[in-house]
């Protein structure tokens, strides 16, 4: 939950990125004796909104649980987490994610088992020899205590691609709710449980991107199938995804049943949710990507373009505002989701940064000009959008193609003068038109004219226009 403001149980920052190691720490998040946790309201509000967005049954109150295991990055050697037994009450049980398969353009469903709010451990780096051989481990506790949502699905996913699409959709929902910025380094991690018919379940840890979700699972399916088809057995184990090598490797030798000594954290009385539910519900309702997608498609926009808008929130906001002010939906969508977004990509500008996008009035104006035939779409795309993408604040008039004032009379004059070219054109020599267009532009004495518009005007004049 990168957007929670503070850590889950203290006032250190939730977004620690860019800070010197161990400078975002206090007695609470490094677990000094006597320090006590107090729950950050925003973490609970956001987690509750996420639970509602995924149709969970939310409890009357939540109870945090201590989960014990010794590890250098866990300062108290217990993690304050959630558990559904031994007095614990997680924020969500049950629930489901309806996610979009963007290849088949159909909604699929994956059930959720539960959602936990918990504290992140610190971050460990190892010296020479890595995790298996390094003499020392080096720990940075800046991340220790940052609120995490642990979302656990039921085994409803049939392929690596589905898993990836599910993760992407879940991240989209969380981004819309303002829970996380999935593009921040380390904003999410995925553990995938993979089993192939005839073998045991294998857990793959340390997957750090949505692309790797697909890669890691496919690798694991391949690996397990190969073992099975050569007559071997797939044992239950935990493996580590190595993104650089594109493979998984065993993490622990023997996977013994761990005993986490779960019990409710006596320092944290139950948190009642009643007062938060209404706000969280409206937050979830107003920020539902599937509803927004449906709304855009309803306006006659293609699914591909609609998806492109929804997956880039500032683009979607711009689109919805423009349409609200009367702009043509299809043209607006094309301009925003396809061509302007393409320009941003080309210029390496961040499409998720609202300041990369022009004001709504610019879009409504451009769409109007195209719609009314003042400019062709291509002129806007080829001349206006590249300049806007460079500087969305630029004065719109200064980047619009100029228009000759008395274009019709100039065309008349040129056609009269260039009788021969007209004849050639009329008798089928298409390239004569280029000459005529050039002559008109030259006669106006201006450069930033839209050649296509002039061509259309000439054609119209000669009775060939459509």
């Amino acid at each position, binding site marked *: 939950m990168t957007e929670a403001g503070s850590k889950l149980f203290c006032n250190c920052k939730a977004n620690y990125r860019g800070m010197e190691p161990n400078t975002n720490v206090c*007695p609470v998040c*490094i*677990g*000094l*004796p*006597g*320090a*006590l*946790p*107090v*729950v950050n309201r925003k973490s609970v509000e956001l987690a509750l909104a996420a639970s509602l967005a995924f149709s969970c049954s939310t409890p009357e109150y939540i109870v945090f649980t*201590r989960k*014990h295991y*010794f590890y*250098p990055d866990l*300062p*108290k*050697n*217990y993690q304050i987490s959630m558990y559904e037994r*031994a*007095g614990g009450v997680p924020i969500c049980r049950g629930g489901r994610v309806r996610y979009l398969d963007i290849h088949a353009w159909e909604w699929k469903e994956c059930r959720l088992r539960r959602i936990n709010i918990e504290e992140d451990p610190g971050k460990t780096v190892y010296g020479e020899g890595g995790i298996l051989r390094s*003499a020392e*481990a080096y720990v940075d506790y800046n991340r220790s205590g940052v609120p995490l949502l642990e979302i656990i699905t039921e085994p409803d996913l049939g392929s690596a691609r589905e898993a990836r699409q599910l993760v992407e959709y879940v991240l989209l929902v969380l981004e819309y709710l303002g829970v996380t910025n999935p593009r921040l380094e380390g904003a999410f991690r995925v553990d995938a449980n993979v089993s192939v018919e005839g073998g045991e379940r294998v857990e793959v840890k340390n997957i750090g991107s949505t692309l790797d979700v697909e890669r890691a699972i496919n690798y694991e399916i391949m690996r397990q199938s190969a073992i099975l088809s050569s007559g071997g057995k797939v044992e239950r184990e935990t493996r580590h995804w190595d993104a650089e090598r594109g493979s998984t490797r065993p993490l622990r030798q023997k996977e013994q*049943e761990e*005993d986490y*000594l*779960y*019990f409710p954290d*006596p*320092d*944290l*009385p139950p948190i009642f949710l009643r007062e938060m539910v209404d706000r969280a519900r409206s937050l979830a309702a107003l920020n539902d990507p599937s509803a927004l997608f449906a709304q855009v498609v309803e306006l006659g926009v293609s699914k591909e373009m609609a998806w492109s808008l929804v997956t880039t929130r500032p683009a979607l906001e711009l689109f919805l505002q423009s349409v609200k002010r009367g702009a043509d939906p299809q043209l607006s969508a094309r301009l925003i989701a396809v061509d302007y977004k393409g320009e941003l990509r080309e210029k390496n500008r961040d499409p998720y940064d609202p300041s990369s996008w022009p004001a709504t009035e610019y879009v409504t104006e451009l769409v109007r000009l195209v719609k009314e035939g003042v400019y062709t779409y291509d002129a806007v795309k080829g001349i206006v959008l590249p300049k806007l993408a460079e500087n969305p604040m630029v004065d719109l008039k200064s980047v619009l193609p100029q228009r000759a004032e008395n274009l019709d009379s100039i065309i008349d004059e040129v056609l009269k003068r260039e009788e021969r070219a007209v004849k050639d054109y009329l008798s089928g020599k298409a390239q004569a038109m280029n000459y005529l267009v050039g002559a008109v532009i030259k006669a106006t004495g201006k450069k930033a004219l839209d050649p296509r518009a002039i061509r259309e005007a000439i054609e119209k004049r000669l009775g060939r226009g459509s």
Partner: protein
Amino acid sequence: MKSREAWQELEKIREGRDVVGHVEEVLARVEKWEGEVKAYISLEIPELLRQRGEELERRLRKGEKVGKLAGLLVSVKDNICTTALPTTAGSRMLDGYVSPYNATVVERLLAEDAIVIGKTNLDEFAMGSTTELSAFWPTRNPWDLTRVPGGSSGGSASSLAYGGADLSLGSDTGGSARLPAAYTATVGLKPTYGLVSRYGLIPYGNSLEQISPMARSVRDVALLLEVIGGWDARDATSLRVGSPVFSLEPAEARGQKICLVKEMVEGAEEPVEKLFWNVVEKLSSEGAELEEVRIPVLSKALPTYYTIAFAEAASNLARYAGIFYPSKGSSGIWEEYVGEARAKGFGREVKRRILMGVYALSEGFRDEFYVAATRVRRAIRDEVLKLTRRCIIAAQASPILPPRIGERLDDPLKLYYMDMYTVVANLAGVPALVQPIGFSHGLPVGIQWIAGPLEEQKLISLGLLVESLTGLAGVMVD
């Protein structure tokens, strides 16, 4: 036997008596007794204490407003975090550890111009009832140096009993402030759970314990509780109540309803029983109404208490793994290093309690032990709340007189048994006061009063009444 109450010292200071003189007086007591009693793990440098005294004198001379505890010397149990002096919790694990922050109660003391004189000895991590289980040394009882002062706040109690502090902060998980009070003729009040912030108290049994004011009189205890009590945003279990303000009017015996719970009265050795009944009958003869009650579930209070305390302790003490604390391992392999740091840093009783706590929480045993204990706890709490709605409970403080040093060390169960009357108030969350009622063969005996949630006032009023009967307010050794 001498008598000195902190509020009297405070009045003298406000009337213009020099603060440094008071500091010297207390330091002289320390000089006389500390070598034998060993109540303190660390003492503030005398010169610094005098300086604090001079500073206060200057402010008083200028007519500046000073705090409610201006010039009083307060000893603080060494499981309460302070930045000025190390905080060891009586353990090798934390030998030399200096907390980077002050506990909320310490901040409140300092804000009222109290002077922290030193940090007092305790059973390691407050796990014990005699203060013999300190990793450093046992503290002796000033009333009889061959005997223990009780525990785990034995250092605090002894510092008061010999006059080495005006007031003291102890902690009480299952009787740790009240048992020492009973053994040293001092007063200990375990507040309602949540009245005093636990922020900065090194936890042993979080759901049970409270930092507890200790002093030589009921009035002094009230004074200290007014300063440390009240809501703290840093402790999620602290109650949303303001700082308490107490009336110092003693209760009337007439109309006072006192319940004698058999399970908390019977079973004490003869001299203790005798003094108990003396006081109760005196109150009765002056008009108090007595009622005998039975609460059979209280016979399960001790195992219930220990099961919960062990479980919480095992969890709380997991953090001591050699990274941030003084006790280190020597192996280069993580798991071995942690095991060594913990083996070296913890004493035997702490190891026992950790292992027992792990047992009580582990899969397959959790329901039979930890969860079962929380179920019995509910029954106990409900019974106690029901009863305290209609009366104050009178109970023994300890089944025995202060034992000799070494006497109770061989058998852990014999040690646990000493808490049989005190754990009830911790399980039920309610306030309980122990005050002296007399001496048997020169050894102090105390009585315990238990009231309903946030009814500290009732305890204080009754305590003042009992003091007027016993005349034991302020007593200390010569």
